[in-house]
């Protein structure tokens, strides 16, 4: 399956991916309305170090420990292998947060459920990841490896 990969060498740490992610998942079509003056809760996060930056989001692990650990059966792999979360089933216990080795699943804005990257299959972008589309330096790519 195609997944999102990050080339750390090319990441500028501009955080545009975080904003594009929050926008894509906001359900609001006007970007300004979606983001202005709001604390964003993106599903991709940039880490910054000494001259190093990189973005992290769900790796869609084949042996996904979050899926196996979910107390509700709210996390599953869909037909394409994308690890997805059923918000109606998630109770926000955050066992997934406690087991994800990448720190790539996090509480949603309301704190009552977890959220994670589903490769933009669960929003208006229809499976074209918005972080990839708008990464100015092509540090984030969507490809089969």
């Amino acid at each position, binding site marked *: 399956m195609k997944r999102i990969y990050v080339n750390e060498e090319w990441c500028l740490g501009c955080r545009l991916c975080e904003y594009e992610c929050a926008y894509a998942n906001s359900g609001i079509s006007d970007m300004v309305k979606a983001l202005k003056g709001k604390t964003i809760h993106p599903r991709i996060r940039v880490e910054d170090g000494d001259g190093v930056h990189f973005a992290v989001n769900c790796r869609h692990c084949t042996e996904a420990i979050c899926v196996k*650990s979910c107390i509700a059966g709210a996390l599953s792999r869909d037909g394409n292998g994308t690890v997805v979360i059923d918000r109606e089933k998630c109770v926000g216990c955050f066992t997934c947060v406690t087991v994800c080795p990448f720190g790539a699943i996090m509480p949603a804005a309301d704190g009552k459920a977890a959220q994670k990257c589903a490769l933009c299959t669960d929003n208006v972008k229809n499976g074209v990841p918005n972080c990839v589309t708008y990464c100015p330096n092509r540090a984030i790519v969507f490809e089969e490896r």
Partner: protein
Amino acid sequence: MKKYVIIGNSVAATHAIEGIRSVDGAGKITVVSDEPHAAYGRPLISYYLYGRIARDKMDYRSEAFYERNQVDLKLGRRAEKIDPTAKTVLLDDGETLSYDRLLVATGSRPFLPPMEGLDGVKDRFTFMTLDDALSLERALSPEKDVLIVGAGLIGLKCAEGVFDRVKSVTVVDLADRILPSILDGEGSAFVKEFLEKKGVRFLLGDSVAKFDGGTATLKSGKTVAFDLVVVAVGVRPNVELVKEAGGAVNRGIVTDSGQRTSLPDVYAAGDNCESYDVTAKQSRILAILPNAALQGECAGVNMAGGKRDFLNAAPVNAIGFFDLHVATAGSYEGECYEERTETSYKKLFYKDNMLKGFILIGNIERAGIYTSLIRNMVPLDSVDFDLLKRSPALMAFSREARRDKLARRQ
């Protein structure tokens, strides 16, 4: 065509079905459960009472699961006896099932210590099953006072579940602190204070000497008036079937790393058996859902002729009370790094160049990075531990390790 029989139909059983089917698409799978429901997320029962999940969303798998995996599901039936020589299981209605491979996934049951007068209490409950939760729910109403015996994970999740639906909740425990299985003393105090502010009343270091209708008299002489009582003092593993068949049992059923019991072709997985806890370096029962899932899957794969070992069991708990979140893992031994604020509490325990355990209260963000260090026994001198102490981050790994991780090469 192989015949598989699974006793119990909960977390371990579900993952075993998936494990079997990942290897063997044809074998016949029969599952026997004494509960009348398809598998549901057992921990969800408190969230159901709390209003976080609808009854029709509690099933652990989709409706099509049993049909898709061609499972013959016998609900509301109890396995009474295993005959390991004849390779049969006797059910309570007299039916005998023969197996080539058997999985005992019987979990645990509530421990009910003898308590004087308990039988005379009309509204008394345990809190293990969906039916327990549904009958408890029928007894809830805003004018009622609830007494919970047991300040462990199950008792306190029950307290949260019923809190908004009753007049008061009082929790009694013999131990002098709450959640002793996952928290240290200070962590217990932190969570207790939070729950007390919320309005939960605690009577610790005390126990019920006797029940007299709607009054509990404690050892200390205090009395508590209540309308209904929930007993949640602990659970006992359901080991009897294996024990009576002559299989090895310590505190839980003994298995090897492939979940095989000492009986030929009999496997066990979940809360009824022990695992080797890599953090405590000893075998013990890890009665947590992720462990049941991993053991169940491992058993299933091996039953079907695949090869799997479950080698990195560790305690991992995530639990929340009224949106105060707690994440813990591993063992609390060795040196300790700690941080504390008004709203959060953090302790990391490390020893022998390894992270051994952690307690996070309030801020649990990216806790899984810590858990993976524990599970994989990552040498701390191979990462930037000073950075990790402050916050879990992949930045703390070497560039190569990070690249491999993010590229899914490991």
